[in-house]
């Protein structure tokens, strides 16, 4: 058990709700940073994520070419299906588009879809899990039956129907992802909430006058935080993979390029077997980013289940 | 001398470094006696038990000048021989929270029979007879052999565990906190039963507890343990009537008694020392109201203060004054 270093003794308590929240948030982030840093794979994952975020943010300035422009090589020919080389580090597509620029442009969309869907799904899942777990009884039944129904929904048919009804757009892709991904986190967080509900510190809070909502969010919430962060990271990983699958199958937004979309272009072009570079770049990127998030979530596993540390 | 330990040290590894849970302990237990080891949490008594039975985790160092049991040198005995000859046969343990050590899906009698047959080549019939005999010794009705643990009350489960420990008539029966969480009536009955067992079997009993009431009732001799060391050792009655060590005096002060309703309870301020950084001097120096500078510097040796009585305190000469002052609350909380 690592003892928390005692804060400086003379630090005055910040008054005012907002400032307390900010101080608490800062503490939480610092604490989390330490957790991730302690785990080697987690640190590696974090580096990858930060790098991807950097590329996502500064993409437009980093791209050497317009991702949709058909380019010519120095000698004037169209740069069609060029292998990776000095001029085009990741190669080009059959339409003479620079793969590097495409990858950079797609990073932003992929990250946004992954992060947003991941975060929304954990938000939904965590709240459902907390509320179902805490209240039990009818509320729990209803929420869990809902979760069961959603478990029964297969991803592919669902997104096909969505697209058929409403057309292809980022919004629906994200909706489909969220619907699929929140399920597991809801169940797991519900299970932990049920376990925590029995602990005496919950009775303590109740005896001191805390309302149900206060108990859920102020008392139980912080205790499920490690599990929550674990599943956040996991959900984001799932979201990215799901989005890649959807885009690859052709259900993505045609106006927003993602890594899965690049693979789709490859597939449609028919050059899958010959343009290995076109295949390698997005695939590796997907694998790397998803693994990064999973590694980070593994770093939280130790915190969520301290016994793993003893071995 | 059944068990003799001199300068026993047990050091185990933890995330924060080495912890010296037992720090130079001297202990001797004779045949056919009940030795009570009393100490609070963190004093090292559970580690001591584990060390004696080789149940310590890996990377734990057990060192001593002497550690002899019935002629065997326990420090040098190979693990296989220890397992075969000593564990369960000569030294048996009734562990802490023994009540939870029973397999809930197996009948109690069957579990003991299995234990017997795992450690010896006894026939099933003979093993069964032995269990019946043991049940009689511990005061459980024979028909309970065919019941499941959940049908036993807490006190009964405890007795079943004692029966399991007595299977091979060990020379030394070690009971680690036999009575925590037991209701007063059940506890009294169990202690009475322990005394009765003691009459019928030849075993010595090492009784480990934090409850001096239990010790007063059950033990022939008492050792008071603090911060990994034995600070006082004496036969029970003299220990209670005339304690020598300030910690013993403090313990007595802190214990309520229905025989002395008007007496004010005095707690001992402070807390036990951190054993990952054991103090150079006396372990109790940080909390002792009679402390002198020399107490922090050097460890007080265990001194014979009377026949069969040992106390590890530098100030044994001032004992009369110490005893009188210890009875006042202001001495401890000024």
């Amino acid at each position: 058990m690592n003892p928390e270093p005692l804060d400086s003794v003379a630090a005055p308590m910040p008054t005012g709700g907002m400032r307390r929240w900010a101080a608490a948030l800062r503490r939480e982030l610092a604490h989390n940073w330490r957790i991730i840093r302690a785990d080697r794979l987690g640190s590696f994952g974090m580096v990858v994520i930060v790098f991807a975020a950097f590329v996502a943010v500064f993409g437009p300035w980093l791209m050497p070419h317009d991702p949709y422009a058909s380019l010519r090589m120095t000698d004037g020919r169209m740069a069609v299906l060029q292998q990776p080389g000095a001029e085009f580090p990741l190669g080009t597509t059959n339409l003479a588009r620079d793969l590097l620029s495409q990858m950079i442009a797609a990073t932003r969309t992929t990250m946004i879809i992954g992060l947003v869907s991941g975060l929304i799904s954990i938000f939904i899942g965590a709240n459902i899990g907390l509320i179902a777990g805490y209240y039990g009884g009818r509320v729990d039944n209803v929420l869990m039956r809902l979760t069961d129904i959603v478990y029964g929904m297969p991803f592919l048919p669902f997104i096909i129907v969505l697209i058929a009804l409403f057309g292809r757009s980022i919004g629906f892709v994200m909706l489909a992802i969220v619907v699929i991904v929140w399920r597991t986190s809801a169940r797991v967080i519900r299970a932990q909430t049920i376990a925590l509900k029995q602990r005496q510190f919950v009775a303590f809070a109740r005896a001191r006058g805390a309302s149900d909502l206060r108990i859920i969010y102020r008392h139980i919430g912080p205790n499920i935080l490690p599990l929550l962060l674990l599943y956040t990271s996991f959900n984001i990983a799932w979201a990215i993979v799901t989005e890649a699958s959807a885009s690859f199958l052709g259900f993505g937004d045609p106006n927003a390029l993602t890594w899965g979309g690049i693979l789709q272009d490859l597939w449609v072009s028919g050059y899958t077997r010959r343009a290995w570079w076109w295949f390698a770049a997005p695939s590796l990127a997907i694998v790397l980013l998803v693994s990064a998030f999973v590694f980070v979530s593994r770093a939280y596993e130790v915190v969520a289940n301290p016994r793993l540390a003893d071995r | 001398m059944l068990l003799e330990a001199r300068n026993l040290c047990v050091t185990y590894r933890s995330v924060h470094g080495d912890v010296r849970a037992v720090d130079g302990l001297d202990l001797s237990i004779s045949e056919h006696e009940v030795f009570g080891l009393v100490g609070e949490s963190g004093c090292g008594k559970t580690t001591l038990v584990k060390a004696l039975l080789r149940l310590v985790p890996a990377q734990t160092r057990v060192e001593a000048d002497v550690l002899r049991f019935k002629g065997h040198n326990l420090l040098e005995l190979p693990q296989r021989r220890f397992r075969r000859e000593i564990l369960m046969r000569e030294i048996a343990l009734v562990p802490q929270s023994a009540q939870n050590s029973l397999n809930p899906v197996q009948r109690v009698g069957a579990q003991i029979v299995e234990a017997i047959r795992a450690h010896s080549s006894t026939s099933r019939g003979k093993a069964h007879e032995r269990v019946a005999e043991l049940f009689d010794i511990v005061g459980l009705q024979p028909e309970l052999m065919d019941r499941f643990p959940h049908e036993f009350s807490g006190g009964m489960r405890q007795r079943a565990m004692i029966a399991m420990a007595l299977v091979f008539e060990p020379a030394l029966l070690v009971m680690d906190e036999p009575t925590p969480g037991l209701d007063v009536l059940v506890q009294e009955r169990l202690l009475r039963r322990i005394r009765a067992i003691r009459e019928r079997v030849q075993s010595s009993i090492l009784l480990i507890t934090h409850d001096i009431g239990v010790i007063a009732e059950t033990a022939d001799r008492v050792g008071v343990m603090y911060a990994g060391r034995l600070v006082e050792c004496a036969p029970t009655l003299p220990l209670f009537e005339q304690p020598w060590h300030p910690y013993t005096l403090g313990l007595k002060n802190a214990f309520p008694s229905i025989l002395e309703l008007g007496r004010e309870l005095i707690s001992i301020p402070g807390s036990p020392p951190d054993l990952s950084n054991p103090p150079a001097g006396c372990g109790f120096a940080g909390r002792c109201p009679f402390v002198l500078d020399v107490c922090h510097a050097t460890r007080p040796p265990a001194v014979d203060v009377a026949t069969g009585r040992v106390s590890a305190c530098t100030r044994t000469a001032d004992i009369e004054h110490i005893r009188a002052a210890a009875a006042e609350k202001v001495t401890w909380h000024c």
Partner: protein
Amino acid sequence: MALLSVEHVTKHYRIGRSLGAALRRLPPNWIKPVEDLSFSIAEGEILGIVGESGCGKSTTCNILAKLTDATSGRVLFDGEDVTHLSSAALARYRTQVQLIFQDPFDSLNPRLRAFDLVAEAPRALRLWDEPEIARRVPRMLAFVGLPPERYAQRYPHQMSGGERQRVGIASALVAEPRLVIADEPVSMLDVSIRAGVMDLLRDSSRRLGFSCLYVSHDLSILTHLCDRVMVMYLGQLLEVATSKDLVRSPRHPYTRALVAAVPVPDPSYKRPPIEIKGELAKPVNPPPGCRFAPRCPQAMTVCSTTPPMQTVAPGHTVACHAVVTALERKVA
């Protein structure tokens, strides 16, 4: 007028049967942890409840702290019926009645610091604004013996058992309750620390003027700390007396056995013989009448009806047919 008055409070609940039992239409199992309990606590008094597991003392604490509801009966606080409360009234009740928990290792939220733990009641009950809380909480920490400069920012795992329990006490007292219910607060602490915590409770009761209901299975502690002690067995109240009277002249056969069985730190003490037989039962489907009768050496046929509580000496009441019969015979 008594501060708290409990009148004929009963708690029953059903537990499930196995499928086989349901098919065979066997009656459901009832657990009856508290049966027809009546007592009162005066202002400033420290009342103890002693009993073994299953006697109903913890359930009584939970009912009075409103962590669970009574099945029947009334609870009066300061003359007002508080048996069923709306949530607003419940909040008000909680400013008057607080609970101290048994387990210092489980009752404190591991993610909250000492300051926040003590501030929980005033914040949850919206008693004071933050500046006021920032003034009162450190004062309360100092009052229980934990200097705020060193303890306010600590997490539970940075404190010892005794220190945690003091935080628990501070968190209960900060809202200035009039009644504090203490559910075995020292049973999980080391012996040498207990006295300090018990003294803290008693001294603060005197200084701050609150009443205390102290529950324990350890009679030695109760007789040391409490003015009066009640004895419970399997949900029924058997005897009430001052500490001294209870120990010097226990009347009920169960109380006599309890007093005889108490561990005493004196090896020369000769324990009086204990005559009760059998094992402690669980409060499942108990028979009518006195629930101690199956184990009582003086059980009579009339014991299948519940004995009423009767005064046998000033301030000393007992619910036992045998005791009352013996008294009547003496008088006759």
